[in-house]
């Protein structure tokens, strides 16, 4: 319990750091571009939103400390202001909420799939060591991990979209359809998700495979695995119960830590496929200098990553009896 509380404390601290970063960045940049943008689009903003953004960006006559605390207060009440250019006058919260489900679905599900599949392959790969396969596979996967996400997405678009016309590669669903919980719509959504999902899968899976393989190899050299052999336990039980159970522990935390990176890559994939999720929205905001939207999205992404790490920590604690209890 104390372990979880400590981690929680750390995350609150990190969130605060992200908030403070958000607060100071526009003020540190030459000319504070945020002020200029807000001034430009003043007309479409509601008075409440304007107040929020004054504290956020440093417009107006309050002193720095007062601005800071107003800003923190606003964030605590989920007041992020309104979009300046992407959807002028619309509350940032509203815009973000619309985009979240798409990203959650695409990135969330695909990452979990990649993790599970990659881990399984890594476990088997380490278990069956020796032979030509073992010396060829790792370099191949290593190379797979350095392929830029956006580039492989483009290549897949070229092959499956442009040349073969097998799969769609624009947007989250065919815009001529009306959204609804019917089979046709859902089918269409899935069809549009195949290419982006596949891109994300093949670029991330290499790392999971390598990670798991390497920790498995180290674990297989442990005495307790030798002991399990000595006890005459069936191979599968040794592989899973003795080796994998232990090997996966460091990977769980690593998995969560890298979600920060997965999210970054998802941004690029959403861009390439015009997939209207959170990442795509962030890039729209950047291109339009829509600072309030940008900041809110950054906070959302950071918060999501922190949450994932916390969950991974809790799961690790549940699986590893050594972290429970006193520490």
């Amino acid at each position, binding site marked *: 319990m104390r372990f979880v509380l400590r981690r929680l404390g*750390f995350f609150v*601290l*990190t969130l605060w*750091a992200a908030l403070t*970063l958000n607060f100071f*960045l*526009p003020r540190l940049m030459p000319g504070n571009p945020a002020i200029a943008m807000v001034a430009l689009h003043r007309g479409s903003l509601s008075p409440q939103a304007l107040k929020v953004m004054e504290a956020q960006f440093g417009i107006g006559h309050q002193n720095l400390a007062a601005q800071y605390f107003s800003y923190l207060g606003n964030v605590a009440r989920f007041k992020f202001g309104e979009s300046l250019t992407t959807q002028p006058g619309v509350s940032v919260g509203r815009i973000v909420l619309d985009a979240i489900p798409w990203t959650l679905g695409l990135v969330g599900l695909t990452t979990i799939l990649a993790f599970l599949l990659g881990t399984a392959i890594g476990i088997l790969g380490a278990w069956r*060591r*020796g032979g030509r396969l*073992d010396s060829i596979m790792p*370099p191949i*996967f*290593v190379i797979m*991990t*350095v*392929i*830029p*996400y*956006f*580039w492989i997405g*483009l*290549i897949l*678009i*070229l092959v499956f979209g442009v040349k073969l016309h097998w799969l769609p590669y624009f947007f989250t669903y065919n815009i001529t359809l009306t959204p609804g919980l019917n089979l046709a719509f859902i089918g269409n959504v899935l069809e549009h998700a195949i290419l982006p999902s596949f891109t994300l899968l093949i*670029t*991330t899976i290499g*790392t999971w495979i*390598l*990670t798991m393989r*390497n*920790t498995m*190899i*180290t674990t297989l*050299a442990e005495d307790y695995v030798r002991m399990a052999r000595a006890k005459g336990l069936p191979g599968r039980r040794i592989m899973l119960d003795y080796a994998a159970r232990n090997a996966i522990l*460091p*990977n769980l*935390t*690593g998995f969560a*830590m*890298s979600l*920060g*990176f997965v*999210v*970054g*890559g*998802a*941004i*690029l*994939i959403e861009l*390439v496929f015009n997939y209207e999720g959170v990442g795509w929205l*962030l890039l729209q905001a*950047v*291109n339009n200098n829509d600072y309030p939207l940008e900041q809110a*999205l*950054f906070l959302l*992404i*950071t918060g999501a*990553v*922190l949450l994932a790490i916390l969950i991974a920590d809790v799961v*690790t604690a549940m699986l590893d009896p050594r972290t429970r209890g006193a520490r």
Partner: protein
Amino acid sequence: MATLEAPGGPGNTGESGQPGQPAMALTPGGGLMPQGGISGARSLRRMTRAIRSNSKATVGAGLLVLFILVALFPGVIAHDDPSAEIYGRALGPSSSHLLGTTAFGQDLFAQIIYGTRPVLLIAVGVGLSATIIAMLIGVAAAYLGGAWDGVLSLFTDVLLVIPAFPLLIVIASYLHGASTLVLIAVVTAVSWSYTARQLRAQALSLRNRDFLEAARVRGERSIYIILVEIIPTMTSLLVASFLTNALYAVLFSSSLQFIGLGNPNTVSWGTMLYWAENNEAFQTGQALWIIVPGLCIVALGAAFALLNYAFDEIGNPALRPVRSIRGKRVKRPR
């Protein structure tokens, strides 16, 4: 498993660092590197010997050398000015234009060749500066211990956990695009924390070793001990850190350029992709414009990653391909 406080470290594994790529640590199982007391020079000799004997390392090193040569002497290889928009537009490959031309009439081959230098500059720049910062902070934290360690580690961990690519995007957006130098600074800022943790962990394990105790007893000052005794021992981890950060840098920077947050007027692989995408290269049949720069990124990234992976194997023999005693092992018929 090397557990430090706060975010349990990515246990060690294979490598990558591009946005979206789960980035893992370097050496598996915590088995990091040669025991204390090995000087920098001996490490270097060991490394060159190791590179020659490991095929992954040779390929990686070969690629890297190739790119370095191209970056240093672009004029020797490509005879056109990469920015000159004087040729026919969107031409296919021919003898006068090895890779064809862009939609603006620039020679693609020249662009690729001249585009190598900025990429390598960023890679080396970030690799060096991130490693130096990581080393200073990581080792200082380990050596000073106590409250200093707590503060520095907390600072490192917070920066580590904040998602790097989104942060990069936000910073770059305020800057309205970044030149090469700015890219180096900004990418370094988000990358150093990762290797700082590993260096701190290793410095911690060295802290109480005898040869350091001897230095302390001799009366040497802390700075001396840090610079002259501890750091040379960590050579192999420092090299690994350089390679990792260089890899990150290549991928991060080209991604930023692709989005348009780099300086679109410079000629670099990332910016080439930006222009290609903006001109719908695939739809208009200029596939090479997209394929070739991407392949170069993969090749350079692979060079760093292979070298890194090879160092992993060299440092932790357990990972090497398993030898078996062929033919001699006693086998029984079933």
